[in-house]
């Protein structure tokens, strides 16, 4: 699924540029959003194949975006990978409760990010 379309969400334009660069190098198409509300809107309008979601977002945080999408029959099939700096178990538990498919802790390694993306896309296809 090399030309899958991925929605990358981060409020930092700097970090978004870097995430975009990684995904483009993996051959994916990339769309972006910079806050939770925009993420939700874009996800609903564009139906991306996968969402990379930062936790700390203005307006709606990443967990809430994730929960809203995962509780909606229409969008629950979109794999969501949460990007978080949190390492505590509690944060991990929150991530799983919100229904995220995976979470990656920072620092983000490009290879790890790409393999997580490929893995989730393969699950959807398979």
């Amino acid at each position, binding site marked *: 699924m090399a030309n899958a379309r991925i929605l990358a969400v981060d409020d930092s334009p700097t970090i978004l540029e870097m995430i975009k660069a990684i995904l483009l190098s993996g051959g994916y198409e990339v769309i972006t959003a910079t806050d939770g509300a925009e993420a939700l809107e874009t996800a609903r309008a564009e139906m991306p194949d996968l969402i990379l979601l930062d936790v700390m977002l203005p*307006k709606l945080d990443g967990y809430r975006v994730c929960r809203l999408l995962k509780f909606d029959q229409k969008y629950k099939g979109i794999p969501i990978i949460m990007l978080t700096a949190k390492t505590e178990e509690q944060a991990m538990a929150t991530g799983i409760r919100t229904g995220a498919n995976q979470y990656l802790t920072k*620092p983000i390694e490009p290879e790890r990010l790409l393999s997580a993306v490929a893995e989730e896309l393969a699950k959807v296809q398979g």
Partner: protein
Amino acid sequence: MSNPADSLRKDLSPAEFQRFRDWIHHHSGIYLEESKVDSLRISLVTRATRLGFLEYDEYFDVLSRDEDEFKELMNLVTINETSFFRFPAQFDALRDQVIPEILEHKPRASRSFRVWSAGCSTGEEPYTVSMSLLDSVLESRGVRPEILGTDVSTQALDRARAATYPAKSLASLSQNVVQRWFEPVKGGHRPVKRVRDLVSFSYHNLIKEPYPILFTGNWDIVFCRNVTIYFRPDSTRRVVNNFYESLNPGGYLFIGHSETLTSISDRFEPVEIGGVFLYRKPIPKSEGIFAGTSFAKPVRPERRRTVDLSRGSRSDTPSRTTSADSGASAPRKRIPARPTPSVAPAPATPEAALEIDAIVRQAHVLMEQGEPMKARTQAELALAKDPRHIGALLARAHANADIGDFAAAVSDANEALRVNPLLASARYILGIIYLRQEDAQRALNEFKRTIYIDPEFVLAHFNVANLYRAQGSMDDACREYENALRALYLSPEGEWTAFLGGFKPDLLAKTCERSLIECRKGTTRR
């Protein structure tokens, strides 16, 4: 900085230079003159380091076998282009502010006005200066200007004298400018006679001393843009020193818009005019007839830019004493590095100071861990004890910016800047806030100020590049991605890394390289 033993030598031997030069010449037709040794060196270091080589020979092997790598290198080598009205804001400042100011302080008897364009390449810069001078008040005051362009490339000088420029050289100019200042000739356009008449050209090597008498005095303005990027610091210091000696008191040095003389020279007064940073040679006090006249206000003292974020404002006290006592230069109306505190005093005991520093360090660690709420609480603990603690103000500004409380973040960043106007991080935070508020112009200004304070603030270059790219200014974007890569090489562990949000510098380097390639293709793919 990385350990020198683990990294590529920064010096390129003459034999190594020749080897690369010959290869490049044979394979691209581009002959790099001796003057390009620094440019080539920087390009080689950038590429070879990127690929992890510790020896130039190893890199040469790859270069000679891999055509793609050869293209990568050539892209870096051939960036030193020039154009008419490059960075127009500098020419606006020249025409509207600098020239009137210099005239005001010139002895009445003096009817000359001399501008030196050092490293003028094929002449675009001196001709642009000529156009700006013709548009200024000089003529109405009966002052006849003269402009001298110098370069080490005789080929470039021949082209400068011929003054015939192909259409693509004029592509970025408005129709109005072209009609006003150029005339069509065979092979392109050339500046009109009255523009050309003010300009003469001469061979001169900036790093060969002593300078001939022609160059050693009585200049009102020196243009030397982008030299500090291409020379090594010791060479740059000598060159800038020679400019200083060559300028009249009150004369101005124009350098590239992303360059700074921080750590190069503290003899000039930095001056900001309309967002452009310029350097003025101070007028000695004995020439006090100029006192109280309309000098543009110097922006700041030259001081080292790196700030230990965990340390409080108190730790600056010794340097304040030093700068006040140094008395090395002429009278300046400078903004003090640290105004007298108007709020609570710094902690009474060294123990209390250390305790606050520890709290602030913790706040910065929390920011790196992506915990802005906790970081903010921590910063507030420190600020309760020392309301002007720079590190604490910056930590809270950064946290508030992350949380999305932009008004509070701006207020903290500005407060930190009042304590010390030379905080690159505070400028950068302001830039980030404006960026998130989609105020591109203000963001751009703040990132440029960040670079002015700390030329190696990689993320500021990166953001400037992204903004230029979004505007469609691909040449400017390419240059800034390159500057980001250079800065990344020079300062891989600088203050800027606090803003990487958990990503590694290496990834930023890859992102810059990728963006650079895309911009060179002229694509704006987002």
